[in-house]
């Protein structure tokens, strides 16, 4: 190579290297902007809320006195609602996803359904709240209850679970399906024995991300009539008398962590802000816990499945 040529290449390479660095800097900047903003918000919330956080705060009902108010009814309500949501949305969402991906014929109707499901995932949550108010509360007469709240949030996350299930199923290689069919398996056997186990990590992640989304939803719960001052717990699901299981808790009035927070932030007294921050801290911890569980489960299941 002649000297000019070598010099020319050096310059050209240097220019391209500069572009690499420039993009990395811009990308890092964008990333930091997001992460730092979140960190600042989280730290501020912790600083405000941590002094209020303690066993008393978790075990106390709301009160007119900010220093005595707690989130007992709220977190129990959130858990009860999540239970209903999970029981309703998980089987339906997974089954719908399996049907669409593995059974549904490829025709116009299926395409329309697919487009609708994908779009539903982006519908604002307040719309679900208003729909549920009309459907569950007025038409079905389920009242402003835990059941209504759970079903509403189930409706909200159903598209998320369906889409996640389908994407997880698509990651199972066709060679696995063909191997199962070649052994004489029926469609259901191939799905149950190979496709769903192979897709399980992805499906589980989708479910938990859906539930984490649901636990933070406020607007639809307010739309269907969440109570913001609940000084009692829903009836216990287990009872000392026959038949030992009681479903009365489903029909109890409810509140939930985000609703409680919202209520405290709109109060005029400054002292309730600290309560709201503490409740937010609890909510964030619950969400982080769920996401952590999703990551751990995915890691555990991925290790078992290698194609």
């Amino acid at each position, binding site marked *: 190579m002649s000297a000019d040529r070598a010099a020319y290449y050096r310059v050209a390479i240097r220019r391209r290297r500069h572009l690499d660095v420039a993009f990395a800097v811009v990308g890092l900047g964008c990333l930091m902007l997001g992460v730092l903003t979140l960190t600042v918000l989280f730290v501020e919330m912790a600083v405000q809320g941590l002094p209020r956080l303690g066993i008393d705060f978790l075990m106390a009902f709301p009160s007119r006195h900010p220093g005595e108010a707690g989130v007992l009814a709220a977190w129990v309500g959130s858990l009860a609602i999540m239970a209903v949501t999970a029981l309703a949305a998980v089987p339906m969402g997974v089954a719908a996803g399996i049907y669409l991906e593995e059974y549904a014929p490829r025709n116009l109707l299926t395409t329309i359904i697919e487009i609708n499901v994908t779009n539903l995932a982006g519908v604002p949550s307040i719309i679900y709240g208003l729909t549920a108010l009309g459907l569950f509360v007025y038409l079905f007469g389920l009242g402003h209850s835990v059941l209504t709240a759970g079903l509403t949030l189930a409706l909200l996350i159903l598209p998320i679970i369906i889409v996640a299930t389908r994407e997880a199923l698509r990651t199972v290689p066709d060679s696995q399906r063909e191997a199962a069919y070649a052994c004489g398996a029926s469609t259901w056997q191939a799905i149950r024995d190979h496709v769903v186990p192979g897709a399980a990590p992805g499906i589980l992640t989708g479910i938990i991300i859906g539930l984490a989304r649901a636990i933070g939803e406020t607007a639809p719960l307010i739309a269907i009539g969440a109570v913001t001052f609940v000084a009692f717990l829903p009836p216990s699901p287990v009872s000392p008398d026959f038949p030992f299981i009681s479903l009365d808790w489903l029909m109890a009035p409810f509140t939930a962590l985000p609703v409680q927070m919202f209520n405290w932030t709109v109060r005029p007294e400054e002292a309730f802000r600290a309560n709201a921050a503490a409740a937010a801290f609890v909510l964030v911890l619950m969400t982080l816990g769920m996401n952590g569980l999703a990551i751990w489960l995915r890691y555990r299941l991925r290790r078992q*499945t290698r194609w």
Partner: protein
Amino acid sequence: MVDRLPVAKPARPAAPALKASVTGLSFHYGAHKALDGVELPVYDRCVTALIGPSGCGKTTLLRCFNRMHDLYPGNHCQGELTLYPDNVNLLGRQVDPIAVRMRIAMVFQKPNPFPRSIYENVAYGLRVRGERSRVVLDEKVEQALRSAALWDEVKDRLDDPGASLSGGQQQRLCIARALATEPEMILFDEPTAALDPMATSNIEQLMTELKQRVTVLIVTHNMQQAARVSDYTAYMYMGRIIEFGETDELFIRPRLKQTEDYITGRFG
């Protein structure tokens, strides 16, 4: 292209009984015609090899035998594929593809064991048929692994994952899985394409042993392999069978120039 199929005269005193015969089989993927009036006899307990350049339709033909095409939309076929001795047209609408796959097993190009134990891989075909007895399962799994020449290597670690085996062992595991249900016929789709020469030679050895009991149909890109393992060979091109005959005849004295060019490597 020829209209009538040039069939080499059998050198042996009597040709073996037919296990299956393909008549007038055409196959379309959408508008693309992959098979065009294929005629092929498959003799009982013999190895029949399908050779030909890529895209000639040999894998498509092979996959018709266990109705694999039913799994995917947008294809259709005409013609008949008759399985003997009961004279059933495997492609018939009223024939359940599951029933076909219970009789005709398949081994794929890339070893595809399930992400389960070695034992469960082999037992799967029996389990989908409803076999629950541990005694029966143990016995048949051992039998199948012995037939696939894998038993001695894995007998002490049947609970290890199938993926822990080497490529050649995985392919023999897939053969054991296919054998466990005692099929009448096994389809091999380029079974050694992903294997090293040593593993390839093991599988070829195995195939010649298998034909004592089952009919074998194999697709291969490797001419030497076809010459080594098969009793009959069909040369395919553009969705048609160009020449079919006893392997020795076809490789030593091909009737058509085109076949000769392909097997000597001058074409394809």
